[in-house]
């Protein structure tokens, strides 16, 4: 079983910076994230948005910020478990947690850092009877990864945002599916005007079938039924993709679920950002304490102090305090 001194939940800015601070003290890290790439909210939701309040960095887009953090932690060895999450976690003894991941892997860790921000991203789903059965069979999907697997298939896409339209147009352009249908709940799209125009052009040419003002009402293993005003249509489908956007839900904490307070945050002390369970820390937007501000820079401060405490607890001694500017040890590790 792989061991890490620190197992981090969440690969957003604060989770990534935890790897840096831990690395300076010689602690090893593993990170788990529900998404398929590191960066958290910054990458997933607003990669192009500017950030102005990182000390010493007058301007960075959110993605540039994540890229810079990934560059900053390059000198250190760490593992990232993507599209994964904690299923169960047990505290065996002081400084030893056993974690089971959704993928089936078991991991041991000296301590756990919750850096899960606003929560894990999950797709929005419609209310349909037996939806889960058809998710498990592979009929209903919320992400599209391998477009070639849709060759000669009948594909139905739901949604009105950029994801729905972009995929629809790409599949059409590559002429992959046998039949391509787009369904939207109302009559207006929420995507770039260029995409909407291209779509309407393809609809006119009968390359894409479009149903507006339509909702899914039932589903079986052959396809999905939608209603449009008074009439019902059965859309035969080999693959259905639903792009209704994302929701955030609390990151899974296994048997430590009780750490979440009523507001969906984790209470910590401000000395070392430890929770009520020794060895479990919470840093960044997922924690709360008197005076808390949900800022990336606050998360950096929190995790820096938390890592010091984790070191003390795992190694049984206070870490030697060193500056990266003068410590020859650190300079050797960090210099490029």
């Amino acid at each position: 079983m792989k061991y890490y001194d620190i197992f981090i939940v969440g690969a957003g800015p604060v989770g990534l910076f935890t790897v840096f601070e831990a690395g300076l003290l010689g602690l090893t890290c593993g990170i788990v994230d529900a998404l398929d790439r590191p960066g958290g909210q910054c990458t997933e939701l607003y990669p192009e948005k500017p950030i102005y309040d990182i000390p010493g960095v007058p301007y960075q887009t959110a993605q540039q910020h994540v890229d810079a953090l990934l560059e900053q932690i390059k000198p250190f060895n760490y593992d990232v478990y993507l599209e994964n999450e904690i299923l169960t976690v047990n505290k065996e003894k002081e400084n030893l947690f056993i974690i089971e991941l959704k993928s089936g892997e078991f991991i041991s860790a000296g301590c756990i850092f919750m850096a899960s921000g606003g929560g894990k991203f999950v797709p929005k789903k419609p209310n349909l009877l037996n939806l889960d059965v058809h998710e498990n069979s592979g009929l209903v999907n919320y992400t599209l990864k391998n477009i070639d697997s849709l060759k000669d298939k009948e594909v139905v896409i739901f949604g009105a945002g950029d994801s729905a339209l972009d995929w629809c147009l790409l599949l059409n352009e590559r002429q992959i599916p046998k039949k391509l249908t787009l369904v939207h709940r109302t009559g207006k799209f929420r995507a770039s005007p260029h995409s909407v125009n291209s779509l309407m052009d393809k609809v006119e040419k009968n390359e894409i079938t479009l149903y507006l003002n339509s909702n899914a009402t039932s589903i079986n293993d052959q396809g999905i039924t939608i209603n449009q005003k008074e009439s019902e249509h059965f859309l035969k489908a080999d693959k259905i993709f639903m792009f209704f956007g994302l929701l955030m839900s609390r990151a899974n904490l296994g048997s430590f679920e009780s750490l979440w307070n009523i507001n969906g945050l984790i209470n910590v002390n401000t000395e070392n950002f430890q929770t009520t369970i020794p060895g479990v820390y919470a840093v960044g937007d997922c924690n709360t304490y008197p005076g808390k501000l949900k800022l990336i820079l606050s998360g950096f401060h929190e995790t820096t102090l938390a890592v010091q405490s984790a070191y003390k607890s795992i190694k049984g001694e206070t870490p030697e305090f060193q500056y990266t500017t003068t410590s020859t040890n650190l300079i050797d590790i960090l210099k490029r």
Partner: protein
Amino acid sequence: MKITITDRNGNTNDYEFRNKQKLTSLMVQNNLDEGFGLCGGFLDCGTCHVVVESGGSMEKQEDEQDCLDAFAFNANDKSRLACQVTLNESWDGASIKIVPDN
């Protein structure tokens, strides 16, 4: 000025606000923002969906309605996106409910 907010757990409380304060900022201040406002107010997610039960204003831009249509499942004619609401005297005494599962 005060506004009454029912949170996702069904708890109802009054919250004081300043004139011209954004509704989302009031919610963040009071820890009412779990799973709320993913896109940061850019009309890209619809997760800050609230229903106005009384008072307030239903005047919205076309963009806000489009976003509600695309991303908020249970939207109705009382729906607003908190990120687009600037509180003022018309919201004094108003009552809103955070939609439990957008």
